């Protein structure tokens, strides 16, 4: 009986190998772009969560970085020299992110590093990057990355503080003064809750109850039932899909008709897809990218957003997303700084810090010694889901 079993195992392994090989073959082949630029390249590093459970962030970021490398080189490079981006995979894991940072800095001698995708992986690399004195432009949202400002660390995405400030502005317009908060127990949810507790009471909005759920919970009926027993006028749900989608569904099921306000963490197609009908009427702060066709024609960001959206969908056949946009901003910012400062890391860092009026997909950036994020709450617009589509809420 032993040999047939072994045969089976071997067969399964072979089959798995075959399937894997076929899967790898599907990856798009690198298209050779025109390379009019000559000379030694400016080498920068990038690390994203290309695999692992944050790969929905990392994949568009990697794709955007690769696209920009080609676009920049096709457009004369940087100071007439090509840009080369060495990309590493953090797998969304803190230890792997640190290793990736070391490989980039020590193995590839990069001028700066773009990424990583997550707050946790960024924080894991911060100390090392500070010690190595190599600029890092993170694509993660957490406010801890830039607060307090660290000499070599910058970031492009908006923070949850800006999102909550935007929500408070929206609530003032809707005369909402009592809310229930429902946040997930991840770092993202906890950080959001901390800002809600700090900013909302200061703005005269009472948080009548603070509920929590696990990111893998299958039902939030209990928490919502409890909220139903309060006089909250809206639910503020802080989490990333699938949690808020389940909350939206449970809210319907319980027949509660108070507005559901979500975080910018649900501003992606996944949320619309999994929440289905229940997504309708959900309100959230979001970058302008998802409503690029609806923003004012004279919005300074409109040309950049349109360029990114068009180039991305032309190249990859899918729509551009906010996370890829963070990488767009980071790589563009890096290119801009290197264009001014050349190959000196300290000078590059200084150039990033003194960048103002840089128009990106996430907003109009004004960096300074104190502000290594460069954005305000106006990097966000309020968006409402109507008939399963994003609609700018005015």
């Amino acid at each position: 009986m032993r040999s047939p079993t072994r045969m089976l195992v071997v067969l399964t392994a072979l089959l798995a190998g075959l399937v894997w090989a076929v899967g790898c073959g599907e990856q798009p082949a690198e298209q050779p772009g025109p390379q009019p630029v000559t000379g030694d390249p400016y080498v920068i590093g990038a690390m994203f969560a290309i695999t692992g459970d944050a790969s929905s962030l990392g994949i568009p970021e990697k794709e955007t970085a690769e696209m920009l490398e080609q676009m920049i080189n096709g457009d004369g490079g940087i100071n007439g020299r090509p840009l080369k981006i060495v990309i590493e995979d953090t797998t969304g894991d803190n230890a792997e992110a640190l290793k990736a940072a070391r490989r980039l800095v020590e193995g590839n001698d990069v001028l700066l590093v773009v990424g990583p995708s997550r707050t946790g992986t960024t924080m894991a690399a911060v100390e090392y990057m500070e010690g190595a004195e190599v600029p890092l432009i993170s694509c993660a949202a957490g406010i801890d990355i830039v607060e307090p400002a660290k000499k070599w660390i910058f970031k492009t995405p908006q923070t949850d503080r800006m999102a909550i400030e935007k929500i408070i502005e929206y609530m003032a317009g809707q005369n909402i003064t009592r809310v229930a908060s429902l946040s997930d127990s991840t770092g993202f949810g906890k950080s959001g809750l901390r800002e809600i507790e700090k900013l909302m009471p200061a703005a005269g909005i009472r948080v009548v109850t603070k509920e929590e759920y696990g990111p893998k919970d299958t039902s939030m009926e209990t928490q919502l039932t409890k909220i139903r027993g309060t006089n909250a006028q809206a639910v503020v749900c802080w989490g990333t899909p699938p949690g808020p989608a389940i909350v939206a569904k449970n809210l319907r099921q319980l027949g509660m008709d108070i507005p559901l306000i979500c975080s910018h963490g649900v501003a992606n197609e996944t949320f619309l897809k999994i929440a289905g009908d229940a997504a309708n009427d959900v309100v959230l702060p979001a970058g302008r990218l998802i409503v690029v066709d609806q923003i004012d024609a004279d919005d300074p960001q409109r040309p950049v957003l349109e360029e990114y959206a068009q180039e991305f969908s032309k190249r990859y056949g899918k729509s551009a997303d906010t996370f890829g946009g963070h990488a767009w901003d980071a790589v563009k910012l890096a290119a801009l700084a290197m264009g001014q400062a050349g190959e000196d890391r300290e000078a590059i860092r200084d150039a990033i810090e003194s960048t103002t009026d840089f128009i990106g997909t996430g907003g109009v950036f004004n960096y300074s010694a104190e502000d290594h994020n460069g954005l305000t709450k106006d990097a966000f617009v309020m968006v409402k889901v109507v008939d399963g589509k994003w609609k700018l809420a005015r």
Partner: protein
Amino acid sequence: MNLPDAAQLLQYLISGLTLGSVYAMIALGFTLIHNATGIVNFAQGEFVAFGALIAISCSTTLGLPMPLAVLIAVAGVALLGAALERAAIRPARRASVITLIIITIGASIFLRGIAMWVWGSDALPMRYFSGDEPIGIGGASILPQHLWIVGIVLVTMAALWVLGEKTQVGKAMRACAVDRDAAQLVGIPASRMVMLSFALSGMLGGLAGAIVCPLAMGQWDMGITLGLKGFAAAILGGMGNPVGAVLGGVLLGILESLGAGFWSGLKNAIAFAVMLIVLLARPSGLLGARGRQ
């Protein structure tokens, strides 16, 4: 802190009962394999995830009718269970229990990887079995899906009871659980019974996943949490006792729901607190272990 009113309490109980039924199914899967082999199958949660994901693929992507989608999911995961036993457990059957348990942990990681590779890392939606109009009961409100879940779990339990008590196969499985060597001496093919227990566990896990995913969505790593909840339920009821598994599942569901009603930050700690308390205070669980020496 405000005490919940009657309608809220009823809602907590109903939510808890629904989730608890799902935990009970998963706990039963643990129990079946434990009785047949003495091991804890840590890939049980992945059975649930595969059940959910296969059902979603069949129903959403292929557009098959719901009953067929669920059937394919259940059959598929039953096969997966049997294959797991043949490919990973049986070749190591002379190894110690702890080795076998570690093999199941390896299998769970492997299956999770496969699930993420096939279905991606995003959550996937699934439509309700029937209707999305909530039904009001005394101030509480439930979905038809809740009724489906509780109903299907009840029918499954009944079918399992009939299988265990009334059929030759069931009696043979129980005999193996009581004393494997003695069972073999009277001509029961014990190794086939082990495979059958894996297939049945797969069936239960697959069914649990298929009925819960319209509420909870399907995601590659959903098995981690659900598997642990089912494990906690099995410990609570008494590992090895099917009635205990059901009782433990339902109790855990209700405890979680009530607990979250008081302090929602506590919800996911409850399963582990229960597990620790039971292991410290009454290691044999509520109903003790039946079917072990």
